[in-house]
């Protein structure tokens, strides 16, 4: 059995999850607690990956991250290489694609918080940033953990976006979902079964944890 695709999937999911939580938590704060013009437009933009097919998002990202796209051109100027067909490229694509899936549980957790906790922190002299770290995050930890797990699972199984942006470069972008697809294409059902079976207990265990956290 090939372990590299599973390792790459786990590595991709772990890095994407860390990045996503670091982005989603402050973003959810801006969306839930602050009033600013254009908020609903930004909110809809972030949620687009839920509504669009992964291949469509993948196609847009392929263009944006390519040498002619704004993202790819800037990346090339700074780092001197292409973003496409690289591990970094699929991490960025996964982060964009999974952002709404991380945001939703964190936003829901923030919305459930009693507004007076924040007000009490302000009256006690805490700045909004200190309130975020000392009051909001500790009291939303279940929502944040649920968001992290959902995004981890979502990233582990990502296929369409990764195929479009990363292709299938062994040891770089050939993650488990792509390896399974290729195994089926070449009628190597043994490899497809082994890789698919590896997903089942991991996903089931994490979903049990999410259900427990959501109930709490």
């Amino acid at each position, binding site marked *: 059995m090939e372990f590299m695709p599973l390792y790459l999937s786990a590595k991709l999911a772990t890095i994407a999850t860390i990045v996503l939580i670091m982005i989603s938590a402050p973003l959810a704060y801006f969306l839930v607690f602050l009033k600013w013009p254009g908020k609903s437009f930004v909110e809809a933009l972030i949620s687009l990956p839920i509504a669009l097919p992964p291949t469509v998002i993948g196609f847009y990202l392929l263009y944006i991250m390519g040498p002619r796209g704004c993202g790819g051109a800037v990346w090339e100027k700074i780092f001197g290489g292409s973003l496409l067909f690289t591990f970094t490229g699929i991490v960025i694509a996964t982060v964009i694609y999974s952002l709404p899936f991380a945001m939703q549980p964190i936003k829901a957790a923030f919305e459930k918080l009693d507004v007076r906790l924040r007000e009490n922190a302000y009256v006690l002299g805490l*700045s909004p940033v200190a309130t975020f770290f000392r009051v909001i995050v500790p009291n939303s930890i279940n929502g944040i953990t649920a968001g992290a797990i959902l995004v981890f699972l979502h990233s582990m199984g990502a296929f369409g976006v990764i195929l479009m942006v990363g292709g299938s470069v062994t040891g770089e972008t050939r993650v488990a979902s792509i390896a399974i697809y290729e195994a089926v294409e070449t009628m190597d059902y043994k490899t497809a079964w082994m890789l698919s079976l590896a997903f089942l207990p991991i996903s089931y265990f994490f979903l049990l944890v999410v259900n427990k956290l959501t109930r709490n």
Partner: protein
Amino acid sequence: MGLKCTIKKQIKAFSIDVAFDCPAGKTLALIGPSGAGKTTIIRMLAGLERPDDGQIVYDGMAFYDRSRRVNISPQKRQLGYVFQDYTLFPHLTISENAAFSAKDRNEVDDLIDYFGLTELRNRKPHQVSGGERQRCAICQALATHPRLLLLDEPFSALDVETKRVLRAELKKIKEERAITVIYVTHDIHEAHYIGDIILPIVNGRVDRAWLERIVAQQAAVNGQAKVARVPKLALAY
């Protein structure tokens, strides 16, 4: 010195339009029926809501002054605020809550002792009673050395006996520390017990006639013996 306040604010059902003073070290009891605008007034004093017009000045420092476009944030007003319901931080213990923004850790220990929370210091808020939570909320507010202490019906959810004990503890500590206190209540006896000045608020306005009516009704119910206990009316407006 003390608090000087002139506030106007349009809220859903009516407009708030009040003016009052509270000398330093005194307690002003804001009394009125539910929905009279008392909590909105105290929230404006704390900076949690913004008046439409007016001026809030404490010890010469303008917290809010529309004409000068001043609106100091709640963080910079250096107030203590005890909310109506329990707003302790659920992830922290009683002791950590009390010391949340404390200036002096030793003083927090003294406050915890004073309010009889020593045995409960390592428990979380959900593991103690309502009265103990409010004791901790008062510790939390006092530990920041507030210039002004705002209490919004802090004992309304408690049983009669706990309420009586806490009122006495609060009265003692505010006299010891000579803190200026704004105390919101709908209970005339509580206002009379705690307040040096009583300000009746009805539909966002000072309404002395309402208070006199309530006092007369209470006197009729309780007998002539208590008629003489007419509260100290605030005539600052």
